C-alpha cells in the first residue's frame, strides 16, 4: 500500500491529538484547559497536514534504510535495556550490544568486531562506573558485573 507520507503521519498525529484531548477531559477544571487547547490545535493542524497531502507534497517515505538499519538497532538497544533492568549485569549485555551495533554499522570480521566491542565496553565502564561513580543496576546473576 502506497500512501503519501504526510497523509499517514498526519493521521497518526491527529490520532494522538484526539486521544490527548479526550484524556484531558478527565483532568480537573483548572488543569485541563491548557492541555486541551494544545492537543486540540495538534489534532487540527495534523488533520490539515493530512488533507493537504492530497493536493501537494505526495512524497513517499523512503523506508528501506530506516527499516533495514535503524529498526534493528532500536531493537538491539531495547534488548540491552531490558537485560540491564532485568539484572543481567552491565558488561555482558553491553558487549553483546556493541557487537550487534558494530555489525549493523557494517564492520566485518569476527576479531575486529570483538576487539572494538571490548574496547568500547571497557572505555564506557571506565568513564561512567570508575570515573563518574554511577551506580549500575544490581545484577541478579552472581559473578556478572
Amino acid at each position, binding site marked *: 500500500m502506497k500512501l503519501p507520507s504526510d497523509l499517514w503521519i498526519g493521521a497518526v498525529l491527529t490520532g494522538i491529538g484526539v486521544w490527548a484531548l479526550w484524556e484531558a477531559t478527565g483532568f480537573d477544571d483548572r488543569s485541563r484547559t491548557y492541555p486541551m487547547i494544545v492537543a486540540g490545535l495538534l489534532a487540527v*493542524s495534523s488533520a490539515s497536514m493530512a488533507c493537504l497531502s492530497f493536493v501537494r507534497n505526495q512524497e513517499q517515505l523512503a523506508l528501506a534504510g530506516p527499516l533495514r538499519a535503524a529498526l534493528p538497532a532500536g531493537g538491539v538497544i531495547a534488548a540491552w535495556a531490558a537485560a540491564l533492568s532485568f539484572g543481567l549485569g552491565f558488561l555482558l549485555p553491553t558487549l553483546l550490544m556493541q557487537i550487534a551495533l558494530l555489525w549493523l554499522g*557494517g564492520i566485518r570480521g569476527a576479531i575486529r568486531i570483538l576487539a572494538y566491542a571490548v574496547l568500547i565496553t571497557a572505555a564506557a565502564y571506565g568513564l561512567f562506573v570508575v570515573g563518574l561513580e554511577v551506580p549500575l543496576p544490581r545484577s541478579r546473576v552472581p559473578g556478572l558485573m
Partner: protein
Amino acid sequence: MDVIALGFSTLFAPGVILVLAVGVFAGLIVGSIPGINDNIAFAMFIPFSFAIPPEQALALMVGVYCAAAAGGAIPAIMIKVPGTASALLTAVDGNAMARQGKAGKALSIAITSSVIGGIASSLVLLVFAPTLALFALRFGYVENFALAILGLSSVVGLLSANVLKGVISALIGLLTATVGFSLVTGYPRYTFDSVNLIEGIPFVPLLVGLFGIAAMFELLVDIWNERRSGKAVSGLPLIGSLKFGWALARRLVPVWSLSATIGNLIGVLPGAGMLMAIFLSYDQAARRFRRRFAGKPGEKSWGEGAPEGIAAPEAANSAVTASSMVPLLSLGIPGNSTSALFIGALAIHGMVPGPLLFTQHGHIAWMIIVAFLIANLILWPAAFIVLKSVSRSVFAIPKEALVGVIALLCLLGAYADGANSFNIWVALIAGIVAYGMRLAQIPLGPAILGLVLGPQLESSLSNALSISGGSWLIFIDPVNHPISAAMLALASLFWLLAIYGWWRQSRNRSLATRPQSDSSPS
C-alpha cells in the same frame, strides 16, 4: 577596582589558575562527548569538590561551564551529533560545511564565536551585574509569559519551508511538556500511574534521546545507504585547515554583536535558558543572511553551510554562561539549571550566593567573576590544542564504529541522571520519535523549544491570570507591564514579517509558474 584586584589575586594564586585551566580542558572534553554535559559533569563533581578548597572547586566549575558550551560544537560539526543541547543548531550549517571539506573552518568559526560571546558576557558580569540584576527582578509572571511567547515566536522565521509542520512540531513539544503533575492543582496528567513521570518526562534523557540517539540512527542509515549504493563508506570529514580569514571575520562582526547581546539579555533572565538564546539569535542571523548574502555567487544557502549559522548560536550560547551568574551572584537567583548547581557547590563550603557572598566571602565572589573572563581567554588556545590533538585522533575512528560509541555514551548518560533504568527507555523512545519526525520532514527545533518553554508558558499564564483576577489585559498593559507589552509587540512583529515573507514568496512563485502553465497545451 580594589575588589576586582581582590578577585584577580585570589584567582592567580598558585593552584587556582591551574585548576581553572584544567577545568577549561575538562569542559571541552565533557562538552564534546554526546550524552555527557556540564550539568551531569557538575552533578558528579560536586561530591568531589568537598575535598578541595572552595577557590579551586569554583574555579574548576567556571572553567567547565564556559568550555562545555564551546565543546558541544565539535561533534556537532564533525558528525552532526551535538555534544550538548546548546550546539543543536550549530550542527545544521556546521556539519554541512564540514561535508564540503571545510571542517576546520567551521570548527574555527564556532570556537572563535564562543570565545567572543564568552568574553562579552564576562565583561557584562564584571561591569553591569548589579544593574542587570535589577532588570531581571522586573520579570514577574506576566513578563515570563510574554518571554515564553517571544521565544516560541522566534522559530517562525525559520519555517519558510513548511509552516504547518513547524507549528505541528512546536505543538508536539508543548503537549509533551504537559506530562506530569499539574503545577496548578497537582493533578497527574498523562502519567499512566508511573512515579517516574510525576515531575514530567525526565528532561536530560529526553534531550539525549532527541538528538543523540536520533543522530545515531541517522548515521546508521547513511552508512547503510552508502553501502547499498556500492560506494565505499565515506570517512568522517577531515579537520583540515583551521583558518577562516579576516574578510569573513569582519562579515561576522554584526552577527557576533547581536548574538552576544541576545545571549546576555536572555542569560540574565532566570528561567529563559540557553536554548531560547540560541534560537532567538539564530533567527536574527537567518534574517540578516537572507537579506544580505542569500543567492549571491559563491554563497551557500541557509542551512547548507552558511557561516552565520555557526557563529550565531555559538556566540549566543557562550554569552549565556557568564550572564547567567548575574542574578545568581547579585540576588541568589540562578539564571539556569547549570548555574543552580553553583549554589550546591557554594553551600558545601558554607557559602550562600547573593549579596551576603560579597560581604562575607568577597574574595570568592570576585574570583568567580574574573574567572569567567580568564576562562574564556584560556578557552581559545585550549580549544585549538584539543582540536589538533584529541579531536584529530578521536575522529580518526571509523564512522562505523562510532555508531556503537555514540549509542552507549548517550544511553549511559541518560541512565546516570538519577541512576534509573527508566531513563534508558525514555532516551530510546525519544530517539525513535525524533528520527521519525526527521523522516516525515517535521523540524525538531520547534519541538525542543516547545518542551523547554511549555512549563513556563502554562505556569506563568495561570499564575499571572490568578493574580490579575482573570484579566488578560495585564499582558499588554503599557503602564504596569511595559516589558511584557513590548515583548508581545516584538513577537507579533516576527509573525507579521514572516507572514509577509510567505505571501511575497507564494506570489512570486505563482507569477513565475503562470506563463508556463499558460503555454502548456492541455
